[in-house]
């Protein structure tokens, strides 16, 4: 028996509400409508120079909703977080003592654009404190008046899932009564140059799990959820986080383990913690980046984790319309799972048209599907061999 086997069944935490800002909708309702309708948020990046890059498209938010707090911060990452927080606060009260309100945010890039500005030799010297990766989370905590635990998680593109897991752990340890948790990242030259240099960006359409898939496009977003313990939950809710796990591949600095070892461990760990059997899973929100390697490995891992029923479970990826929103991606995908349960609609995998023999699951192609999943599994991977899995229960209404 491994250590994880003994960690079966922990108290679930309730997800009361969510708030988002994304390229396809700048609040939760607009985001959900756009997902279900299959709207495409990819456009030519306008906010910074891209003419020297192979690929200049992404999921750029053309107009970030102004908030009272965002007028006082220059950092775009903080502005996105504050916009998502405004959306969240319109949907739920943050009814806790400041010392019992925790904030946990995940990010792959933090405030790195502020470092670009600080190093801009043509400009006047600027302080670089806001370039620290935990600065946007601090701006969020200030705006919320939160004085409880404040944590920034950076498990690369799995950050938005790890943050929800860490937030749940804080509640279970009675470190807070309410937790605002989620993820964020912005499109900036730093990350566009990086993925461009890696040749990870497609010059065509993002096609998760499709035979012709040729890479990802990046996007920017912020997504937050409000969580509390089951015993403290009052009023409407979106659902529950039943279990989570974050693991390491221990294999390669950038590429996933060739057999998806770490991802499989994370899925099994999350299912164990949730006390959920693979047969109970109704929906999988895949990482689904549309890179040749990721989608093939992820498909194989899902088959190994879910067994004979894998073929029968809808698996979607929402990255084609949003771009890969990095630190925000996993939180957005978790929210998508809960909204699918609420409304009985599973958003489609845009761009999926031609089957790949190595990606042979049910990927919900092109159109939303009428189905009401109760238990969802959400998977995420990131640079540095980061893997995360969440098990969510959408029986929230």
């Amino acid at each position, binding site marked *: 028996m491994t250590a994880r086997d003994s960690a079966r069944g922990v108290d679930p935490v309730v997800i009361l509400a969510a708030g988002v800002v994304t390229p396809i909708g700048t609040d939760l309702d607009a985001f959900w409508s756009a997902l279900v309708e299959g709207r495409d948020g990819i456009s030519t990046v306008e906010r910074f120079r891209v003419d020297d890059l192979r690929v200049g498209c992404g999921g750029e938010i053309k107009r970030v909703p102004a908030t009272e707090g965002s007028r006082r911060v220059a950092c775009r990452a903080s502005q996105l977080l504050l916009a998502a927080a405004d959306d969240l606060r319109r949907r739920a009260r943050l009814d806790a003592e400041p010392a019992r309100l925790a904030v946990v945010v995940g990010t792959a890039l933090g405030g790195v654009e502020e470092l670009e500005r600080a190093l801009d030799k043509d400009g006047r010297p600027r302080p670089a404190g806001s370039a620290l990766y935990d600065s946007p989370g601090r701006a969020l905590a200030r705006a919320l008046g939160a004085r409880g635990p404040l944590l920034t998680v950076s498990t690369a593109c799995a950050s938005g899932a790890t943050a929800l897991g860490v937030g749940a752990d804080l509640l279970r340890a009675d470190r807070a009564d309410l937790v605002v948790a989620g993820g964020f990242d912005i499109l900036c030259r730093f990350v566009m140059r990086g993925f461009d240099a890696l040749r990870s960006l497609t010059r065509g359409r993002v096609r998760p799990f499709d035979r012709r898939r040729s890479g990802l496009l990046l996007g920017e977003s912020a997504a937050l959820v409000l969580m509390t313990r089951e015993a403290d939950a009052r009023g409407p809710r979106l659902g529950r986080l039943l279990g989570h796990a974050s693991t390491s591949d221990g294999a*390669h*600095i*950038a590429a996933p383990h060739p057999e998806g070892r770490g991802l499989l461990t994370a899925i099994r760990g999350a299912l164990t913690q949730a006390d959920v059997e693979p047969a109970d899973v109704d929906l999988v929100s895949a990482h689904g980046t549309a890179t040749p390697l990721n989608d093939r490995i992820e498909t194989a891992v899902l088959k190994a984790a879910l067994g004979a029923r894998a073929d029968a479970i809808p698996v979607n990826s929402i990255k084609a319309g949003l771009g890969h929103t990095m630190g925000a991606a996993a939180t957005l995908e978790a929210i998508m799972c809960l909204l699918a349960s609420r409304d009985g609609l599973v958003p489609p995998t845009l761009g999926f048209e031609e089957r790949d023999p190595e990606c042979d699951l049910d990927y919900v192609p092109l159109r939303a599907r009428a189905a009401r999943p109760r238990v969802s599994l959400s998977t995420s991977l990131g640079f540095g061999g980061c893997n995360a899995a969440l098990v969510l229960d959408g029986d929230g209404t």
Partner: protein
Amino acid sequence: MTELATRGTTLGGIGIITGWGGGVAALPADAAHAAGDRATIAIDRPALAGPRFRRATRECLLGVAAVQAMLDAAGLPRESIAGADTALVYVTAAAYAASNRAFIEAATGGSALHFPYTAPSAVPAEVAIEFGLIGGYVIFVGGGTTTLEALAHAAGLLGRGECARALVLAVETFRECEDLHARARWLLRRPLVEAAACALLTPGDYDLTLTPTGVRADLTHAARRRAGETLSCEPLIALALGLESGDDRLHLTCQWRDRPLSAEWTRGG
């Protein structure tokens, strides 16, 4: 308000590397005095063998060296931590800044540095690869208070049986961004001392309690005085000093960006 974080852990060993040398024995009595007019006390790139380390950044190698230092200090073989039953919890406030800067300042297309090494996850990734760690994995960004949270998180993983042992690793480098840090003297007190530290947590009889208060404890005061500004490494250096003292009660206090946090590690009754 006192917040009970978790129960039942012990420190199996701590490895420390700083700009002053290896272990707490290398620390001067007074870092400020020992630094003289030097703003930063840097650590040379560790000489780790193998082609895999050719591309790795200095901070990655410091992480690997700190884990090896912990194993050496505890008298443990590498095999003792390999596998899925070891969790790795990594903390840094700023060790990614050097690689971020190098990438930003590269003249063309990021060729000067492999882009994945700009991520904070690069350091624990190299550590995980080197030591075969494939268990629980969390990366926090922040200073000393975040390391206290990381210790509590690791203790929680142990307490819930999600791992058999946990490594809490912290790495800080300053040399490449010394000019930027000089603009942030409100945040960083001199001398800035590069450091890498790793603590091994195993099930045991110490209870860890976190309290959001800021009265500086003896151990962290000593760590700051003797080591200098080491950000996320400071609590682990303080713990190493505490282990040497043999006390049954280890009290740590940190402050990072206006937020204080105290931790008390007490042998259970």
